[in-house]
C-alpha cells in the first residue's frame, strides 16, 4: 500500500503528460494558432494601396525614396555574403566504444570498437557507422562492418537513413566479405533512449535486422552509467553466417564513464553476449560457445 502511495505522484505526473493533448483538444473553442495568419497570408490578404503621406526619414546618400523602396523589394545583391551562414556543413566523429575486452572464459581477449560520424547540414548528412573487433594474440582473426548512409532528419528526433554496408571477417588467412543494402532509423525515443534500427539485405538476398538501444543515466554531472542492448534478427536461416531464423543474438552492456570532457571519457564496463533460438542450436551442434561474459575498459571519444 505504501509502495503504491509512493508511486502515485509518478503515476499522476505521467498521467498529466499523457492526458494533456486530450485536454488541449477539449478546449477546442479557444482561439488556435492554426487559424491565424502567417506573414505570407497576411501579406496576401493585405489591401494596401498607396503608402500614406509621411515625411521620409533620412535616406541613404544619393538614393530617393522610390529607389530605396524598389531596392528593398529584391533579395540582396549577389555579391553580398549571407547575413548568417546557417547552412554551413559540420562534421562529427564519435568513437562510442574503443575498448579492450577481456573474456572470462578461455577465448582470447580482443580489441573492439564502435564508431560513427557524419558530414552535412542540419537535415541532410552523409552518415557512416563502423564497428569491429580484432584479436591480436594467437590466430589472426577479426571482423568489421561499415555502413555508408545518406541520412535525412525527418522529424525533430529521427533520422531516416539508406545506403550500403560492407562487412568482412577473417581468420588465419581465411577471408569473407559481403555487401548489403541498408535502411535505418536512428534517433531518440521518448524517455531519452537512443535507438538505432537497421535492416540489411545482403547480396545473396538474406534479410537481417540489427537493433541497438542505449540510455545515459547520470550519477553526477560527469559520471554516467550507460546500459546498452543490441539484438540481431534474421528473416531466414543463413548457413554460411551460422544464423537461424528469428532472434539470433543479444548483447547486454553496461559502461561506467567519467566525462573528463564531454568528448573525452574513459570508462570500464561489462558485456554479456549470448546466442538465441535456432542460432544457438547451430552453435551448440558445432561445439561452439553460445554465451560469453566480457570485462571492458576503454575510451569514448568525439571530435
Amino acid at each position: 500500500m505504501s509502495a503504491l502511495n509512493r508511486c502515485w505522484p509518478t503515476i499522476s505526473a505521467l498521467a498529466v503528460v499523457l492526458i494533456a493533448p486530450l485536454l488541449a483538444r477539449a478546449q477546442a473553442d479557444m482561439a488556435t494558432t492554426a487559424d491565424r495568419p502567417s506573414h505570407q497570408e497576411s501579406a496576401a490578404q493585405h489591401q494596401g494601396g498607396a503608402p500614406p503621406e509621411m515625411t521620409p526619414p533620412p535616406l541613404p546618400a544619393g538614393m530617393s525614396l522610390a529607389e530605396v523602396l524598389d531596392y528593398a523589394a529584391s533579395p540582396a545583391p549577389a555579391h553580398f555574403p549571407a547575413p548568417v551562414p546557417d547552412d554551413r556543413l559540420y562534421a562529427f566523429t564519435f568513437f562510442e566504444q574503443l575498448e579492450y575486452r577481456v573474456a572470462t572464459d578461455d577465448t582470447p581477449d580482443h580489441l573492439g570498437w564502435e564508431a560513427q560520424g557524419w558530414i552535412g547540414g542540419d537535415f541532410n548528412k552523409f552518415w557512416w557507422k563502423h564497428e569491429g573487433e580484432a584479436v591480436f594474440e594467437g590466430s589472426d582473426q577479426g571482423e568489421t562492418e561499415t555502413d555508408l548512409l545518406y541520412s535525412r532528419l525527418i522529424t525533430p528526433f529521427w533520422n531516416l537513413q539508406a545506403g550500403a554496408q560492407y562487412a568482412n571477417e577473417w581468420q588465419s588467412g581465411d577471408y569473407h566479405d559481403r555487401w548489403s543494402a541498408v535502411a535505418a532509423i536512428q534517433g531518440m525515443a521518448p524517455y531519452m533512449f537512443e535507438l538505432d534500427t537497421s535492416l540489411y539485405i545482403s547480396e545473396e538476398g538474406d534479410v537481417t535486422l540489427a537493433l541497438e538501444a542505449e540510455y545515459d543515466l547520470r550519477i553526477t554531472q560527469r559520471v554516467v552509467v550507460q546500459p546498452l542492448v543490441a539484438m540481431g534478427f534474421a528473416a531466414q536461416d543463413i548457413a554460411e553466417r551460422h544464423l537461424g531464423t528469428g532472434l539470433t543474438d543479444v548483447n547486454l552492456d553496461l559502461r561506467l564513464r567519467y566525462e573528463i570532457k564531454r568528448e573525452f571519457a574513459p570508462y570500464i564496463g561489462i558485456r554479456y553476449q549470448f546466442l538465441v533460438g535456432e542460432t544457438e542450436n547451430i552453435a551448440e551442434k558445432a561445439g561452439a560457445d553460445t554465451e560469453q561474459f566480457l570485462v571492458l575498459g576503454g575510451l569514448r571519444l568525439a571530435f
Partner: protein
Amino acid sequence: MADNLRPRPPAAMTRRHFLATTGSAALATYLALTRPVGATGPGPALAGEFGELDATAPGGIDLYLERRTLLVGGRPGSAITINGSIPGPVIRMQEGAEALIRVHNRLSESTSIHWHGILLPFTMDGVPGISFPGIPAGDTFTYRFPVRQNGTYWYHSHTGLQEQLGHYGQLIIEPALPDPVEYDVEHSIILSDWTFEEPHRVLWKLKTMEGYYNFQRPTLANIDEQMQATGMSFGEVMGKRLAWNRMRMDPTDIADITGATYTFLLNGKAAHENPTFLASAGQRVRLRIVNASTMTFYDIRIPGLPMMVVQADGQNIKPVETDELRIAVAETYDVVVTLPDDRAYTLFAETMDRSGYARGTLAPCLGMAAALPEPRQRPMLTMADMGMMHGGMEGMDSNGQDDMHQEMAMGHQDQTKARPHQAGGELPTENLPHRLQHGPAEHGPASITMARTASRRLDYPGAGLGSDGWRVLTYSQLRALERPPGRRPPTRQFDLHLTGNMHKYIWGFDGKKWSESDLLRFQYGERLRINMINDTMMSHPIHLHGMWMDLYAGGNLHDNPRKHTVTVQPAELLSVDITVDAPGQWAFHCHLLYHMEAGMFRTVAVVRSLEGGPIHVRS
C-alpha cells in the same frame, strides 16, 4: 565619467596617483587612436581598459579593429579589440548632430559595426549581407548619419561570431532637450560573456553534442537537492523527471553556454577583479546598463539599494522602483540609485542559469568592497513553460497534479474566439487575447513544439526569479514616459512562431532558417502588429533593426514602451506594433548569437507594396 574606466587600483592609492594614471590611460587611448598598430609594452594589456569618444564632435572619430592578446580575468586571450580594448570605447553622440565614424579594419577577416537600436539609413546599419557587403580586411568604412534620438545604446559586430571575442561597446546619446532623468554621476555598466575557446568550436559543440555546457543537469546525486529546493517527495521528483524524460526535454536547459566555458565580465573585468564605481553618499548615480553578452541573461541587483529604473532600451519610462531586474541579451536599462551612506555596495549580476556571475562595487572610494550575495539555486523549467499552466501560480515549481488542476480549472476562462484577419480594419490596442491554443505542429523537423498553449507572460519575471521576497522588474511595469510619435492602431497583423530543435541545435522562425526563408515584407507607412509565439522552451531576445517595436505591455497606445529588443519567454504570446517608417532592408533576429548564426534570422524588406508572391531571401 573617467572614474568608471579605471582598473582596480591598489587600496592605498592616493588621489594624485589616481589622477596620474587617469592621465596616462587617456594618453594610451590617444596613442591607440593615432598609432594603433601592434601591442605596446612587454606583456599583454588588461581587458576592460576602454576610453570614451565623441562621434558627433567635429571631424568625427576613428575606430581601429585589431586582434590582440589581452588579459581577460587575468588570463591571456585573443580578442577582437576596438582601439585596443574590450569592450571598445564608450561612444558618445549628441542628438540632432551628425555622427561620423571611420572604421578601420585591421583584422585578417571581414568585419562590421552595427549601431544597436539606432534609427538610420539602412546602408549605415552595418549588417553584412543586408546593409552592405561588410568591411573587408584592410579596408576603412565610413559611417555617417544624423542622430535622431537619445539614450543608452550599444554597438557590436554583426559579422560571424566576432561579438563573442569582445567586438562591442556602449553608445550614449545626449538628449537635445533637458534630460528628464536627474542624476549627479553616471557610470557605464557593460555586461558580457567571454570564452577562451574559439567561438566556431563552441558552435560546433552545440551542433554535435546536446547539452555540452550544461553541468547542472538532473542526476541521481542531486535528487535530494531537488527535493529540498522544491519540497517535493522522492516520488514526486522522480515523477517529474520521468515526465521530462518522456518529452525528451531537459528542465535544466536554461542557457546553451554556461560558466563551464564563460568568464562573465562587467566592463571587461571578471568578478574577482571587482571593477569599482565611485559615488558618495547622497549622490544620485545613473547606471547605464547594457547587456553586450552573446548568450547570457543577467539578473542584476544591488543588495541594500533599491534601483529606480528610468530607461529601457534607450527610451525614457515612467520611473519604476525595483530590487532586481533581468536584462536580456542586447537590452539596455538605465537605473538611478542613491547611496545612503559611505559604505560599499555590490553590484551583482548573476547569470540566469546561476552558473556564474559578474560583479562590481559602488563605493565612495576605491579599494572598498561589500559582501557577495549567496549564489542562488539554478532554476528549472516548469509545466508553465510548456503553456500547461498560467495565472498567479507561475514560477512555482509545483508538482504535476497541481499543474493539471490548474489547467482544468483555468482552461475555460480565457477563451477568445478565433479572430479572422481583418483586412484594412483597425486592430484593438488594449485587452489583446490572453491566450491561444497551439494548432497542430506544422513546423517540421526544425521545431520541437512542447507548448500546448501560448499566453501573455508580461507579469512573469522569468525562470528562477520572483520568490526571493523582493521586487523584480517585469515588462508589465514598463510605461513610456511620454507618448511616442506615430502611435496608432495597427491595420495588419501576423503571427510569427519562434521555433527550434534544441536537440539538433537548429533555430528559426516558423520552422525555417534564414536561408530557407522569404523576405519578411513590411509595407512602407503601415502600422503592423507581429504576434510572436515562442514554441521553444528557451527565452529569446528578438531584435528588430531600424524601427521601434512598441511592446504590448498591458498598457495602451499612449504608454506602451518602445523597445529595440524584446524577450519572448517559453510558451509566451507577445505582441509588438511597428510603425513602418524606415524604407530599405533590415535584420530581424534572435540576439542570442549562436541562435542567430544557426538561422533564427529574417531579412525584413520595407517595400512599397505587398503585392506579388513570396520573395526568397537569396536571388
